[in-house]
């Protein structure tokens, strides 16, 4: 019940903030979609960071470190610190400038003008929307599951428990359909009324919440394990391989052997049952094998996705001035460090933490993304558990809101306003249209999430790869005069085809460990899309002098 009350208080605070920011709304389309281009440095930093850091920053970082060791920080966090700021500095400011000069609201408006092709928008639109939809689903499903798992016992007379084993839902827990509906409703209310300004303020609040709660959680867990030094010593004794990026022959691999014993027992039980009662075969634990240098290096391509996220493009355009970007460029790597380092350490400690002779994370525990929640539940009180749940929901919602609004904006501006003719829609009609699309998208996402397509979680990294593989397009559009319309088509189509081939090769995302040439598939896709863009651009007619002068003015 404590956790339920904390979640409710948190959501009420968020709604209150939504009501306050909606009073600032000026009633215009430019205000709804772009906050009248008036967002200052601090709010821009918070909204960019909150949007790029999903719940993965808290629970995923801990889980990956639990699984792969501390090397995940270098692969995922420190690369992001370098590359995200590069995208903000080299691409974001330029796009903000074009947006302000030529009145853009969406990426597709820019690409249509820069590459002198209306049809390019038709090709890009389904690709960009298709890559965002799995994210929306992951967010809504993660929110529903988080609430369901953290509110057990709150309303035993209303909701019965179900399931068995680690996946069982305790009696009284807020069911998935209700929890996810609550989250969708709260996000819908502040996005509907406040537009992008509402999301910027909500993101700022939520980002502060999840940063503070991450640090508090780390500190409490560390104390409960007898201090940080004691926690680290337990890891060095039992699972030292998670503190480096290699596995040695004499490593004890205590967790792996513990997991394997549990697997053997489960397997024996599974085999002893008649075939009709067996259910899914237990999955053997992966033997740790370390991280190869090439695999580690190829992660540098993943954060390039930030350059092509449509929701981030929209946030860039809200900046008050070019100078508003300065704080984001500098502070983004620091915020990543503040959130990720404690979580990665907790993940490593979780492999070996023992209290009263029992491992805190039991052997055979097969869901790395639940490691942080499990550690908090085992080592702290319900109050901190509730606060951490609020922090996880904050991280989820601070990405969901921008994505909902961005798709609403794309449908309104790239489809309705574009094909109806800009002058045929009044300002109020565009705002109304945007709001209607936001409602439709939230409802559709909620409906799809109720089907609980489990495979959607494996699509996360593939969505990142898809956006990253289009990065050469935006970089060339901004810096290379010679990039042509045909080159742009070649880039997009090559990225789509190579992405699909590798996606199919990975068993449509079923193989989470899938590497191509010992690298993340994104490295190959980015290489192919870049080559296609350059070769076809050089082989085709240069853009018109008018377009070159427009985007690369000589006096600038």
């Amino acid at each position, binding site marked *: 019940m404590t956790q339920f009350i904390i979640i409710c208080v948190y959501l009420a605070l968020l709604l209150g903030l939504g009501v306050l920011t909606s009073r600032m709304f000026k009633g*215009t*389309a*430019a*205000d709804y979609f*772009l906050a009248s*281009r008036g967002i200052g440095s601090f709010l821009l930093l918070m909204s960019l960071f909150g949007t790029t850091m999903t719940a993965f920053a808290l629970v995923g970082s801990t889980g990956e470190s639990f699984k792969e060791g*501390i*090397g995940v*920080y*270098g692969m995922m*966090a*420190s*690369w992001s*610190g*370098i590359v995200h*700021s*590069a995208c903000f*500095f080299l691409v974001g*400011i*330029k796009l*903000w*400038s074009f947006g*302000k*000069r*030529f*009145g853009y609201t969406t990426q597709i408006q820019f690409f249509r003008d820069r590459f002198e092709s209306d049809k390019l928008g038709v090709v890009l639109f389904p690709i960009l929307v298709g890559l965002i939809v799995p994210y929306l689903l992951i967010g809504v499903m993660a929110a529903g599951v988080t609430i369901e798992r953290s509110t057990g016992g709150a309303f035993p007379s209303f909701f019965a428990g179900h399931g068995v084993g680690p996946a069982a839902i305790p009696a009284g827990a807020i069911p998935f359909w209700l929890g996810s509906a609550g989250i969708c409703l709260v996000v819908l209310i502040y996005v509907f009324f406040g537009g992008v300004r509402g999301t910027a303020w909500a993101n700022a609040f939520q980002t502060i919440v999840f940063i503070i709660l991450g640090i508090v959680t780390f500190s409490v867990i560390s104390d409960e394990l007898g201090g940080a*030094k004691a*926690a*680290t010593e337990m890891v*060095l004794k039992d699972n*030292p391989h998670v*503190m*480096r*990026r*290699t596995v*040695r022959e004499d490593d004890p691999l205590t967790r792996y052997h513990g997991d394997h014993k549990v697997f053997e027992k489960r397997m024996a039980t599974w085999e002893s049952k008649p075939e009709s009662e067996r259910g899914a075969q237990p999955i053997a634990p992966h033997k740790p094998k370390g991280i190869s*240098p090439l695999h*580690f*290096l190829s992660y*540098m391509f993943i954060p390039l996705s930030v350059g092509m996220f449509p929701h981030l493009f929209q946030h860039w355009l809200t900046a*008050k*001035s*070019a*100078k508003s970007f*300065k704080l984001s*460029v*500098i*502070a*983004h*790597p*620091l915020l*990543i*460090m503040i959130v990720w*380092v404690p979580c*990665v*350490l907790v993940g490593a400690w979780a492999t070996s933490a023992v209290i009263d002779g029992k491992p805190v994370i039991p052997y055979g525990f097969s869901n790395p993304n639940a490691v942080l929640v499990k550690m908090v539940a085992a080592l702290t009180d319900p109050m901190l558990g509730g606060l951490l749940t609020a922090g996880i929901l904050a991280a989820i919602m601070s990405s969901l809101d921008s994505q909902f609004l961005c798709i609403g904006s794309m449908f309104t501006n790239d489809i309705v306003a574009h094909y109806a003719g*800009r002058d045929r829609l009044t*300002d109020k009609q*565009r705002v109304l249209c945007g709001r209607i699309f936001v409602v439709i998208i939230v409802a559709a996402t909620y409906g799809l999430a109720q089907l609980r397509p489990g495979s959607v979680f494996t699509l996360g990294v593939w969505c990142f790869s898809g956006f990253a593989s289009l990065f050469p397009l935006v970089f060339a559009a901004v810096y290379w005069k010679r990039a042509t319309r045909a080159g742009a088509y070649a880039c997009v189509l090559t990225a789509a085809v190579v992405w699909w081939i590798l996606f199919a090769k990975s068993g449509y995302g079923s193989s989470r460990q899938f590497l191509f040439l010992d690298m993340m598939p994104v490295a190959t896709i980015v290489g192919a899309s870049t080559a296609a863009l350059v070769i076809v651009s050089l082989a085709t007619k240069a853009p018109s002098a008018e377009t070159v002068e427009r985007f690369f003015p000589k006096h*600038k």
Partner: protein
Amino acid sequence: MRLFVYFLIVLLAIVHQDFWWWDTEKPLIGGVVPIGLAYHALVSLAAAILWGLAVKHCWPHDLDDDDATTVSNDGAAS
């Protein structure tokens, strides 16, 4: 200076591939943080400092002119 700052950023991306700490957890910084993690936390810190230098020395001042551009309510520049 501009080129030097970009050179340092490229250098940071190169030294990110720290093969020299690959197979060791020691030294432990403060007895807690393995060197492979501490080094990359330092890389994040260095990234913030270098992007700070880029903001100071590589800033696209020509774009500051756009701050004065007015935009009408429908989003179009005027």
